[in-house]
């Protein structure tokens, strides 16, 4: 049964390396391998992100010859198809059938929320990617950490930058009409208005919008428009925005997925000069990323972005944690404590975890520029050690309701 299993260890490319080093492993490996489960949407509308997650993690393990902290690793990838019910069945499969020691992923908030209770109940160490705010705020789990960012975590610094350095006063926000978009725009609005700016219009578009024409026509003229979109929506909106000649009238700035590297590779020069914010950029100038990003590009012909970065960082954090517990993954409590205390140096910079398991790390303001004939997100400013609470008091923050379409209320909308 396990023969036909899509396991990394069994893959042809991995087998070559493993067989060369096999004698060494046999002597050094008293126990069975560490089993890591990856929940990624590899089919359906979220597939491009999910495939990147798989590629980057596979690459991470291959670079280490499938061995972390001296113990062999087996990667089991389960396809959630971007459907919550399937994500749950797949999580059960990883836990109950494959007996994994920890889980990485999944990508979408609704997938993560569908399995959160289950993973907590099964006490399964989880390194999350999805951004839903409350998973590390009002409903944290002792078994969950997030290595990326909450929906709003990266939006705060951009709002600060827009108000203080770009001197924008009036901004329009547009985002996908689901929690990720709501939460990101709410965080952006809060930080921007606290710095003296005004959100004059908030537009939310359905996740699957075939034509943005009617929304582009609604946009009021302000200093800038903030794109809180995910997937290819930012790219599609922007194309129509430019066709309507609006890019000459107002600036465009974007959240952490709006002009992700995976979107950027489909765009032309019209994207030049757009500012976005993220916890990662393929252009980051640190030794780890200088090795990772070019290697990824060499292998797959495009830059790693949010999704590839997320699982690579997961691998790095996991490796540090495993080293500190001597790869004894059977002790789940110790593993979880080690993950939370890892303070790992990763391709996104050093990340720590706060008390609720959310990453504290650098957030980068990036500008689309051209380098070697392709568009890249070059870093123009670093906000160091940004937390999910930004500059706000944690206790007061948690007393408020979770960010939504209507909270915090927009006071400055123009009719």
């Amino acid at each position, binding site marked *: 049964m396990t023969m*036909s*299993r*899509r396991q990394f260890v069994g893959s042809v490319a991995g087998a070559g390396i493993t067989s060369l080093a096999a004698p060494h492993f046999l002597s050094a490996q008293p126990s069975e391998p560490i089993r890591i489960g990856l929940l990624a949407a*590899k*089919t359906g509308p979220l597939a491009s992100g999910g495939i990147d997650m798989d590629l980057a993690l596979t690459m991470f393990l291959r670079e280490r010859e499938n061995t972390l902290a001296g113990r062999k690793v087996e990667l089991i990838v*389960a*396809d959630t*198809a971007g*459907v*919550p*019910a*399937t994500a*749950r*069945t*797949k999580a*059960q*499969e990883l836990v*109950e*059938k494959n007996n994994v020691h920890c889980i990485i992923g999944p990508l979408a*908030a*609704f997938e993560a*929320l*569908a*399995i*959160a*209770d*289950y993973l907590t109940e099964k006490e399964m160490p989880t390194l999350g990617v999805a951004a*839903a705010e409350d998973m590390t705020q009002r409903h944290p789990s002792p078994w969950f950490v997030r290595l990326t960012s909450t929906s709003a975590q990266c939006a705060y610094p951009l709002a600060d930058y827009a108000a203080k350095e770009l001197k924008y006063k009036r901004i329009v926000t547009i985002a996908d*009409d*689901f*929690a990720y978009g709501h939460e990101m725009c709410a965080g952006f609005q809060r930080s921007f208005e606290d710095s003296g700016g005004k959100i004059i219009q908030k537009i939310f578009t*359905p*996740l699957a919008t075939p034509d943005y024409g009617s929304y582009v026509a609604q946009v009021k003229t302000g200093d800038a428009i903030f794109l809180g979109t995910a997937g290819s929506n930012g790219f599609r909106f922007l194309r129509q925005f430019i066709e309507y000649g609006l890019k000459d009238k107002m600036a465009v700035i974007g959240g952490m997925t709006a002009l992700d590297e995976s979107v950027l590779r489909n765009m032309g020069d019209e994207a030049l000069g757009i500012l976005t914010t993220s916890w990662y950029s393929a252009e980051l100038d640190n030794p780890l990323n200088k090795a990772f990003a070019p290697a990824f590009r060499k292998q797959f012909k495009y830059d790693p972005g949010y999704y590839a970065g997320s699982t690579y960082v997961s691998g790095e954090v996991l490796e540090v944690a495993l080293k500190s517990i001597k790869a004894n993954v059977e002790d789940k409590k110790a593993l979880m404590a080690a993950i939370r205390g890892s303070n790992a140096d990763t391709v996104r910079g050093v990340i720590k975890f706060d008390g609720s398991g959310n990453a504290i790390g650098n957030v980068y303001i990036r500008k689309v520029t051209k380098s070697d004939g392709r568009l890249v997100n070059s870093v123009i400013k670093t906000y160091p050690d940004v937390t999910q609470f930004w500059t706000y008091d944690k206790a007061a923050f948690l007393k408020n309701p979770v960010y939504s*379409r209507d909270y915090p209320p927009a006071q400055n909308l123009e009719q």
Partner: protein
Amino acid sequence: MKWIGVALVAGSLLLPPLFAGDFYINLASQILIAAIFALSLNLLVGFGGMTSLGHASYLGVGAYISALLTSRYGFGHGAAALLSIVGTTAMAAFFGVIALRASGLGFLMITLALSQVLWGLAYRMSNVTNGDNGIAGLTRPAPFGISLDSPISFYWFALIVATFALVMMATFVSSAFGSSLKGVRDQPRRMAALGFNPWLIRWITFVYAGFWGGVAGLLYVYYHKYMHPTSLSTTSSAEALLGVIAGGSGTLGGPAVGAALVVLLKNYVSAYLERWNMLLGLVFLFIVLVTPTGIVPGVSRLTTRLRGGER
């Protein structure tokens, strides 16, 4: 011969919990839920000749009502289950009046449109349904104080409900009313001439199918402990319809077999095969080409032919 078959089926249903791991028991529970759902759709498609592409409405609404009542309004599971079944059945009664104005392709399009309306509502009315985030933190009921939280206890629960559902639907179609339903399917004009009211017969069947769709929805939400608008999507309806057609519409065992096939392909084979949805398509193509009436009728025809050959 027939008893051997019955014993085989009963054995395969009663034995899994004794040796299989949790994952397989959970898979079996999902098959049972999908089977109830497919059986209820089969009342319309197979016995009533009314092909519906919106049956997920009943599963989704039944599940949503229970999820909302228990999580948001503090209802107990008993009251919530009752209200959810009543609500779903009432909705089926109303939708039936609208959908049965047409037949054939028109009927299919109306059911599709109605289910799309509900799907859209579930997505967009985020202050009620919590939209794309779904409703999390749900619990399973504990009938007579027996907790259903373990995979095995839930399996037994689902098996009891599924058996009851199968018996009830079998009784329905083998009753005199069931015969008139088949009559209306094949010869509506003649039935009308004989003094039957085809519309009423269809409508009652529609409501009854909606009722069992709601029951499947309850089990669905108990099983997943999470609710998301995708449960109301056309994909959800279409999967059930595929199960009915693949297994053999108009038979009692067929939809259950077809539903099991869909669940297994979707949740089990997908672990071994990246392009599992392509395989799903190929399997259905194969079924349609080889046994156009579905697996169960095809297999029984095969066995009779084999037995005939032996003689």
